[in-house]
């Protein structure tokens, strides 16, 4: 069923249902007509960059960089800019960007088109990982429905954890290995084909599309002063309803659990911020970028699961996913993973040594992969001290490795 797009003013979304408000219950993607009926047209007359600055929107891909400043940097560079929509979402536990592209693609596309218009860009590349076939099909159909003044290119890049790093992504789009390059130069000054390039996470562009419609004050009406707005969180682990949730920034872990129908078993700890995040036992922790929310992955670990075994598995994954270009990352992450594995198997490893290695690798790679891995390992060592003691004394604790952190089956 299709109807002409509404010309009446559409009221701004109230409450935390902003990006996910128009989702269809049958799981089908929202069509352009449905999208416009829900959100109205995007007819921006004011300065988008000024609006973004006023809104306080920050990147939702993990970096948290102020979006207005990013667009300003591209605008100030020499040459006609290019826009790249980062829909790669390389972290296994994250599903929010795929969710947007697969179910409300026009929000992301609106944001990309608006950014292109503001920056005078004529080309927009939408980057997705190889495995995101369904999402690519949905985006292709959505593009067919539209008439924007830009040329769209739907691109496929390899799957992998570091592919989402902006220089790795640009290299992959240029047909080179999906490995990071040293910065500077930054993509905003020299990116795809040497052009000033705006690489923006899909969710960030979706927020941009709504800010362009409803304004900065509306955006700031939820969230905190320092971190306004809403954010998408992918929640997994021992909760009744795993999946992608939209929360006001500053929402506590326990409030998020309640939205998800509560815990299904007693919980031991929460991983906030995914594989580059940190563990916490504090249910009252506000979910914000300052508290390490990153790209929004939250995992609820049950007591039957051993945090040490689970973390050792993640540390090994992060070591394996290193691009292998920088010595400290290649060697350091392997050493950290081996260290956690040794502790987990009952061989005492000096905690001091692991902590020194974590300090040594941070900031010494071409990208932030070693920093994130180091943060995760350090957090594991401090949060699971009891489990570590048990493993050192008895080679195990009461929990087992249930693969909660690396489970990809939850949708």
């Amino acid at each position: 069923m299709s109807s002409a797009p509404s010309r009446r003013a559409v009221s701004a979304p109230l409450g935390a249902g902003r990006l996910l408000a128009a989702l269809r219950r049958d799981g089908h993607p929202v069509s352009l007509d449905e999208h416009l009926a829900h959100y109205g047209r995007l007819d921006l007359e004011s300065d988008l960059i000024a609006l973004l600055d006023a809104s306080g929107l920050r990147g939702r891909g993990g970096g948290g960089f102020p979006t207005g400043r990013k667009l300003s940097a591209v605008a100030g560079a020499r040459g006609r800019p290019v826009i790249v929509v980062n829909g790669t979402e390389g972290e296994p536990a994250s599903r929010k960007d795929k969710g947007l592209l697969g179910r409300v693609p026009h929000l992301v596309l609106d944001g990309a088109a608006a950014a292109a218009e503001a920056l005078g860009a004529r080309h927009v590349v939408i980057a997705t990982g190889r495995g995101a076939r369904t999402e690519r099909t949905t985006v292709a159909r959505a593009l067919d429905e539209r008439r924007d003044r830009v040329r769209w290119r739907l691109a496929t890049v390899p799957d992998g954890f570091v592919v989402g790093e902006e220089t790795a992504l640009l290299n992959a789009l240029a047909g080179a290995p999906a490995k990071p390059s040293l910065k500077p130069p930054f993509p905003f000054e020299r990116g795809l084909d040497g052009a000033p390039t705006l690489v923006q996470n899909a969710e960030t562009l979706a927020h941009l599309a709504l800010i362009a419609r409803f304004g900065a004050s509306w955006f700031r009406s939820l969230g905190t002063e320092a971190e306004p707005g809403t954010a998408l969180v992918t929640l997994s682990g021992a909760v009744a309803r795993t999946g992608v949730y939209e929360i006001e920034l500053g929402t506590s872990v326990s409030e998020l659990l309640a939205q998800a129908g509560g815990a299904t078993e007693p919980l031991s700890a929460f991983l906030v911020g995914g594989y580059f995040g940190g563990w916490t036992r504090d249910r009252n922790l506000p979910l914000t970028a300052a508290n390490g929310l990153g790209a929004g992955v939250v995992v609820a670990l049950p007591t039957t699961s051993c945090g040490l075994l689970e973390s050792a598995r993640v540390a090994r994954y992060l070591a394996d996913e290193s691009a292998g270009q920088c010595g400290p990352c290649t060697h350091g992450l392997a050493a950290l993973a081996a260290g956690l594995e040794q502790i987990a198997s009952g061989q005492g490893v000096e905690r001091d040594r692991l902590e020194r290695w974590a300090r040594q690798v941070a900031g010494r790679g071409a990208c932030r992969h070693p920093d994130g891995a180091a943060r995760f390992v350090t957090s594991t060592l401090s949060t699971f001290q009891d489990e570590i003691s048990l493993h050192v004394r008895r080679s195990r604790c009461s929990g087992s490795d249930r693969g909660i952190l690396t489970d990809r089956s939850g949708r």
Partner: protein
Amino acid sequence: MNRTLRLDPIACDGHGLCAEILPEWIALDDWGYPIVDGRPVPQQLEEHARRAVKECPRIALRLDRQRTTGAV
């Protein structure tokens, strides 16, 4: 003019020559890779710093003027 010594971690292969030439400014980590002091190089070490740059087999070191980082 104060310059800083910058390392390209991708080019670097951990030969360690730089740390031999300039031990006051460059240490080696547990895997033999250089940890370069990021502050402006003191006047008295500048000649050694230039030598370290020149001798690096991977051309992984540079002496830079201070850059205002427009990090995004």
